[in-house]
């Protein structure tokens, strides 16, 4: 089996997720347990190959495709966990498109980025690159938080639209309650904000110390991350200081996710990637 692992490509897990998504869509029309287990099987196969891809290729997390594959991998775990636990809820049909979108974007950008070698010890752990690694992981976890908040917001908006239309509560799509989706969004963003702040501060220190060129400060990645942090500030203010309706908070979270995608897809000013 070991000889096949290096042959795993993005297409393997991308197609697995796509088939899992198709089966989940079919399940909305024909709620059969076979479709559910089929979806879970392909989802698990996708996650398996995705994991081995990340382990064997070790793409640079600072590169656009590397960061996108890493974020989509965490979201794939989130999808499988949720699908297993929320048997009757429409879960995969919301999470898998985001996973697929990030994988597709990563795939599109991968041809333009440098994929790292496969050293036995990742080189960012050696010497002064350690703090660069911490910076990267903090921002990656913040990105996962934003993505989860985005998913909760999409589902919130969908559920709120159904309630506004007074759709049948026992319709084909069985959603989580507004309260639960709001709590999911709140927790994800509350967790992501300190991670984003720390990651951003650490990045600023590293940039000033080692790569303090003026042009670096104005790269899309850095400006986008600062913009994302500012959107977070507005989000927290709207949630805790002003009584803003859930629908508006959800829309603001969508903006934050849009900025996140731009940040992830943009080239890092000095750690490789698309220039």
């Amino acid at each position: 089996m070991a000889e096949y692992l290096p042959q795993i490509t993005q297409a393997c897990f991308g197609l697995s997720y796509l088939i899992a998504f198709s089966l989940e869509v079919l399940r909305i029309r024909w709620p059969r347990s076979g479709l559910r287990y089929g979806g879970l099987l392909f989802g698990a196969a996708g996650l398996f190959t995705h994991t081995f891809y990340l382990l064997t290729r070790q793409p640079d997390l600072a590169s656009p495709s590397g960061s996108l594959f890493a974020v989509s991998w965490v979201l794939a775990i989130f999808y499988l966990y949720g699908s297993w636990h929320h048997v009757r809820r429409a879960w995969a049909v919301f999470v898998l498109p985001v996973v697929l979108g990030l994988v597709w974007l990563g795939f599109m950008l991968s041809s333009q980025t440098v994929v790292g070698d496969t050293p036995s010890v990742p080189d960012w752990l050696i010497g002064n690159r350690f703090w660069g690694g911490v910076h990267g992981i903090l921002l990656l976890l913040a990105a996962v938080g934003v993505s989860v908040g985005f998913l909760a917001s999409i589902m919130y908006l969908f559920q709120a639209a159904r309630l506004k239309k007074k759709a049948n509560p026992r319709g084909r799509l069985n959603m989580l309650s507004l309260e639960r989706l709001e709590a999911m969004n709140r927790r994800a963003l509350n967790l992501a904000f300190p991670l984003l702040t720390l990651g951003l501060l650490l990045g600023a220190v590293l940039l000033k110390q080692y790569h303090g060129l003026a042009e670096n400060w104005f790269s899309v990645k850095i400006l986008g991350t600062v913009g994302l942090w500012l959107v977070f500030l507005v989000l927290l203010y709207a949630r805790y200081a002003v009584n803003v309706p859930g629908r508006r908070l959800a829309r603001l979270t969508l903006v934050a996710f849009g900025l996140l995608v731009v940040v992830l897809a943009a080239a890092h000013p000095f750690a490789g990637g698309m220039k």
Partner: protein
Amino acid sequence: MNLRTIGCNFRTAPVEVREKLAFNPAKQQWAVSEVAARYGAEVVLISTCNRVELYVARASDARGFDLDLGAEFLAECHGLNPAIVGEHLCEHVDSAAVRHLFRVTASLDSLIVGEGQIAGQVKQAFEFSRKLGTTGPLLNAAFQHALAAAKRVRTETGIAHGHISVSSVAVDYVRQVFDHFADKTVLVIGAGKMGRLTLKHLEELHPGRILVTNRSPEKAVEVAAGCGGKPVPWDMLDDALAESDIVLSTTGAGEPIMPRARFEAKVLPRRSGTMVILDIAVPRDFDPMIHDGDRVCLFNIDDLTRIREQTIVKRQRHIISAEAIIDAEVRRFADDWNRRRSGPVIGQLNAEVDKLRGEVLGQLMPKLNGKLSDTERKAIEYHFRLFQSKLLHGPIAALQEASREGQSGTLLEALKKLFRLE
């Protein structure tokens, strides 16, 4: 199979007649025992708000319990005129009676198709008679098979999907908004009958607090006492609304008690999070314009009724597949029952003729002793068995054929008499 169903339901009798023919448990016990004793029959009586039906099974057709006798008996039970009772009764016989029982139990013959209560009521009626000892092989088999068929219909079709009571639909909507209820406050405005029913459903969610307000303080206290809630003065309605998560409004006010302007000025700014308002009053208590599906989710009686009707229409789509299941189960039951009934007779018949063959061979063989080789003796025994098989093939095939058609009764009796079977 000598099974008859005699009774009335919502199609054959208006509610005034059904009310008069309804049985309480004491009367039901008397009626069931009386029919069983008078006619030597197995009896089950189903009495619900939509039907009163006697299921009577007898070993033979002699002194059959028919429609006229049924009308006389029901009239006697309730002190009514048999002719008037008879006008509202209907009868199903044998396999039609089985089919009727299966359809009733599967809720295909209900006022609201797919409603979940009837299977429980049928089971209760059957258990009632079984404990009284008025059921026997046929009704035991028929009712148990009916309950199993009903379960199949409910699980294999969508006939029981969704809720058809307005109160249940209201709770479904509440569950679309909230996930846990221990920290929620329910406000009950008014004291209408429908409101009390919905409140019962809401109480099952175990909300943290229930507030009750009413123009009449005495009524508020009464309703609050019934649900473990706290009465709130009517002039504090805005405050109560501001601190509530779920509002159940059911006043008899002639005009809206909460116009949009008042709600937006005095309630909305003082609260955060989503609020669900169940306005089941007619005329409506809340201005429908306050509904936005985010901060305020307002559902009035029209919304709830619309969902109820949608559910009923959806259920109608599953009737054909449900009827197909019932047809298959009725056939299976008839086959099983007839096999059960004719099987022992065929067994007895074979045993009886076996015995006769044995006796004849026993007389023949000593007379031929020493004149036959083993091969010849075996050939004679074989041809005797062959003769027996050919002789019985006709009657057994005819009996099996009649069993399949559900008409084996007369033939069974004839065979028993002809071959002197026990």
